[in-house]
Each structure stands twice: as C-alpha cells, then as structure tokens.
C-alpha cells in the first residue's frame, strides 16, 4: 500500500512538473483567462506527396478533421482557407513562407504532408509560430489509412499540451445515457461526440454512468435484475460485477487513477456513501449521517470528496476530508444543489442548482466555497455537469431544445453547443479522467 501511494504521488508530481515547463515555455493560450482571445490559426489542406487520389482526399479530410478538433476546444479561431495567399499544397511543408501567413492574420500555422502507398499512410504534421518564424512541433505518424483520425487527434493533443500545458482532451471519452433504442442504455463516445457506442443492451433502465481513470471500466445503476443496483462493467471484455446488496446501489464516482470508487448503498436502511474496490467489495463506509448522502466526487489527489447531503435540511454540496472524515458545507445559495464534480486542477467544483424560478442551472464554486459563478441561464433545465480531463470544457445535459440533449461549453460558460445528435433523449454525460496517448 505505501509503495502504491509513492508511485501515485510521483506520477502527480512529475505531471505537474511537465505542465509547468510546457506552459512556461509557450504562453499562447491561458485557459484560466475568462476573457480569452481566440488564437488565429491557419490550417491549409495538406500537401499530397506523390499526388495520388487517396492523398488528395486525405489532405482535405485530415486538414478538416484537425480544424474541427482544434475549433472544438474554443481556444482557436480557425482562419478561412479562402483568404490564404500561399498554396500550402505546393509549398514545402517544412519551410512555409511566414509573411504570407502573418498577412492573413495567422499567429499559428499547421502544415501537413500525406503520403499514401496502398493502405499505408505516412502523415507529417508541423506547428509553426508565424510571427517568430519558428517550428514549435513536428511529428511523423505512420499507419493504416483508417488511422487518420487517431493521428490527427494525437497531434492535437500535442498542440494543446504545448500551448496550454494540459493534455488529455482528444483521447478522452464521455459516457452518457441515451433512450434512442427504446430504453435508457449506457453509451460511450469520443470527446467531440463522434463514434458513439452502445455499452449496455439489457432493455431495462440504466442510469448515472461513470468512467474509470483508465477508461476501461464503467460503473452505473441498472434495473436489469429488478431493482436499482450498482453494476461495474469492463468495457473491453464485457465482464460485469453486480454489487447485489439489499436496497439500492447508486451514484458511482471513481477515484482518479485508482481502481476504486465511491457509491451510495442503502442496505443499512439509510443511504450512505461507501468506498468500494473496482471489483465491488466494500473497503469502508465514508459517510455516517441519517438521510440522503449521495454523489461522491473525488479531488484529483484523492484526498477529499465532494458529495450531496440532506443533513442540513436541503440537498447541498459538502466536502469531506478523506483522512479526518470531517465534512464542510460549501453551497449556501439556493435550496437544491446537487451533482458536484471536481475540476481536474482540483480548485473548483461544478454542480447543479435549482433556481428560484424553478429551473436547474450549472454553477461553479471554489473548493473553498468562494467565487460562485453561474454558467447557464434561461435555456431550459441544465444538469449533470462534467469537466473535460484537461479542465478546459464542461459537458452537461440541457432541455433547451425540448428533450434532454448533451451540450458542451468552456469552463466560463462560453460557446455552448450540442455534442451528439442521436435519436431519443441523451442525459448524464460523464467525462473520463485524462488518458495520455
């Protein structure tokens, strides 16, 4: 146990060291600045190396994919290709004519070169600072033609790591519930809503999915065996553990970087939060208070737990120290504050509040209870907020267009847009904690 602890501490320290270095070197995008100016970036079509048809297609599709992925972060202003002066498909991707790009307003430039031989793709991608006339990144990817998207996303991850110091967005997944098949089932999609895959097929009611840090496990509540029980499923081999205690098993939340989760079990006759192994064995009980205690969400270092308790008469967000067990209430505004989620930096809590007007909206508050900010306003009910693993975005569900759908916005509430278009209703998005490629 102490050895494990040491490893996890070392991991966190080295990660932070890495971030500090990168962010210090290139301070292009400060994700902590709410009045962020979007960085103008030019992403011309890639150069087809031999000029065959497959290369031409990949040159366009790849550049579009890269543009969409970077635009999704809300940190970039993708410049209109129609205004470009230089023809990047003819120029040398390693030495662009910088003046031609600064003239059209680009501060950053991505060039690419695609070489296709049969099914084999070699993709050369570079990021330039056009004002300082220097290359910031250069990567060569080789693989199958069908690997194009994963190559593009890996490069995007590197760009974000370099510019913001935070990686992990582009490799991340989102678990959610969709009713499109006629029953509420668990689905998992990519960070940008692409590639949605149905995980459960039990035609029962499945709720509150939560992905583990390594993205291999999803915990959820299911009525598949009659009553609402906690299911822990391995996404790869489909193994399912059911925590078949008396009463319910609800509102799971994984500990970052560990094969452990918190969940509310009611077998004692009272809903209390327990710490469980990923195999569904109880490690210990975390709360001990009559009435509702639900929705555990752990700080990135695993030392604190945010949760919802009705111990004060209304549902409110509390933070409990995992060592001492002492809990402090942090929400005092409103009579119904639920669904806390910890920011990946560990400084803030996002949650759902019931406003006086009767609508649910999303708020962010410091883990110290200070600095309350409301992120959604006057657009139906907005619930189930969840941070992206790089801390830059928040996904949530909203009824602004009628039925519940999943949306995404910046951590300041800007650029709110729909994430997935699927039949039925979608709800309860939960982002996986960061997975480094």
């Amino acid at each position: 146990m102490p050895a494990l602890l040491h490893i996890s501490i070392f991991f966190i320290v080295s990660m932070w060291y890495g971030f500090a270095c990168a962010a210090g070197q290139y301070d292009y995008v400060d994700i902590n600045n709410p009045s962020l100016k979007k960085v103008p970036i030019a992403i011309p079509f890639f150069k087809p190396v031999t000029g065959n048809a497959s290369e031409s297609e990949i040159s366009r599709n790849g550049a579009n994919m890269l543009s969409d992925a970077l635009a999704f972060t809300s940190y970039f202003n993708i410049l209109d290709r129609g205004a470009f002066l230089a023809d990047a498909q003819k120029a040398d991707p390693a030495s662009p004519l910088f003046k031609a790009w600064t003239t059209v307003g680009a501060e950053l430039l991505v060039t690419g070169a695609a070489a296709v031989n049969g099914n084999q793709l070699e993709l050369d991608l570079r990021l330039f600072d056009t004002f300082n006339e220097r290359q910031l990144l250069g990567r060569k990817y080789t693989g199958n033609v069908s690997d194009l998207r994963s190559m593009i996303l890996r490069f995007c991850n590197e760009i974000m790591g370099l510019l913001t110091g935070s990686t992990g967005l582009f490799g991340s997944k989102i678990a959610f519930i969709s009713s499109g098949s006629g029953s509420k089932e668990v689905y998992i999609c990519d960070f940008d809503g692409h590639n949605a895959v149905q995980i459960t097929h039990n035609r029962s009611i499945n709720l509150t999915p939560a992905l583990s840090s390594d993205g291999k496990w999803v915990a959820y509540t299911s009525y598949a065996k009659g009553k609402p029980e906690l299911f822990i499923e391995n996404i790869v081999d489909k193994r399912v553990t059911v925590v078949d205690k008396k009463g319910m098993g609800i509102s799971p939340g994984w500990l970052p970087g560990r094969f452990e989760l918190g969940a509310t079990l009611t077998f004692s006759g009272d809903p209390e939060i327990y710490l469980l192994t990923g195999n569904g064995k109880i490690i210990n009980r975390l709360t001990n208070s009559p009435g509702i205690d639900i929705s555990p969400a752990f700080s990135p270092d695993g030392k604190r737990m945010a949760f919802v308790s009705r111990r004060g008469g209304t549902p409110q967000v509390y933070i409990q120290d995992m060592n001492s067990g002492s809990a402090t209430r942090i929400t005092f505004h409103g009579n119904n504050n639920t669904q806390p989620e910890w920011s990946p930096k560990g400084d803030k809590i996002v949650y759902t509040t019931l406003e006086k007007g009767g609508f649910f909206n999303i708020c962010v508050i410091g883990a110290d209870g200070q600095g309350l900010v409301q992120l959604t306003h006057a657009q139906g009910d907005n619930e189930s907020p969840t941070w992206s693993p790089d801390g830059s975005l928040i996904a949530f569900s909203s009824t602004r267009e009628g039925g519940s759908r999943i949306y995404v916005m910046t951590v300041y509430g800007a650029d709110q847009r729909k994430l997935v278009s699927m039949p039925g209703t979608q709800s309860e998005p939960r982002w996986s904690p960061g997975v480094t490629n």
Partner: protein
Amino acid sequence: MKKLRVLLAMLVVPGLMLTASCAKKVVKPEAAVSKADTTAQRVVTPPPAPVDNSAQEAALAARQKFQAEDVYFAFDSAVLNATAQSVLKDKAGWLKANAAANVVIEGNCDERGTVAYNLALGERRAASAKAFLTNMGVAPARMATISYGKEKPVDPGHNEQAWAKNRRDHFVIK
C-alpha cells in the same frame, strides 16, 4: 360448481389486470364480470348458473382500490401529510384483512432534480410508507420497497399538475 368458480376467477383476474393500469379510474366489478360472462359463453356451455358474487366483488373492489390509490408527496419531501396518512390507514386495514398478501411499495418522483437524488428521494418515500404501515401493525416482512426515482412518471407533462401526480408511492400486490 367449484370448477366453475375457478374458471370464473381465471377470467375475471386478467380482465382486472387489463383495467388496473388506468390509474384512479374505479372499474365497476359488474363490468368485469359481464365481460367475463361473454367470454365464458364462448368457451363453456351451458352458461354459468347465477351465483351470489357480492362478497367476492367487494373483495376484488377493495383489492383494486388498494392498488389504484397512490400516496402523494410535496416537492423534495418524503413526509406523509394528513391525506397520505389517511390513505395509508386504509391500506393498513386491507393488509391486515388480507394476511396472505405481500406488497411492493414503489417510490416515485417528479422530473425535477437529478437522477441520483431522485432515486434516493424515491426510496425515502417508499420507506416512509413502509414505516407508517409497520407502525399500524403490518409485518415489515410483507412489504418490499423499490425506488423508480423519476424514471416512471404517470403523467409525462412538464408542469406542476403533472409533477404533483408523479410524486407518489404506488402499491403493487405480489
């Protein structure tokens, strides 16, 4: 005669099950019986001799009332108000008179609020009714509880009228 009664029960019960889904609408036992009669005529000849069914009909009506009548709650509350308590007293009476029957108490919520919180609240609502019935002398072993949170609304509307109908305990005889 005994055979006939069994047959009659077999025909009446499914008829009741079909109509039981219409919440609150009290179905007259006569209607159920006459429906069964027309079906019976097709199956058995001669038609059933007139039987005095009044006691059976009353029992069925009481059973149906037990399942049709829900207990309602205020928003974000699992507290039993005076109306809820009076409905539960009737239910306690029926359960004591029908000692062989077991019941599942289903706790439900309106659509407002989060899924997990409503699961917990629904369980509290079912537990409130179970505790009240236990205090009225019904053996706890005869009662199971389950929460459906906000997953099984009787009224799909998005207004207080619908919400009030959905914040309920529903009782199912097992």
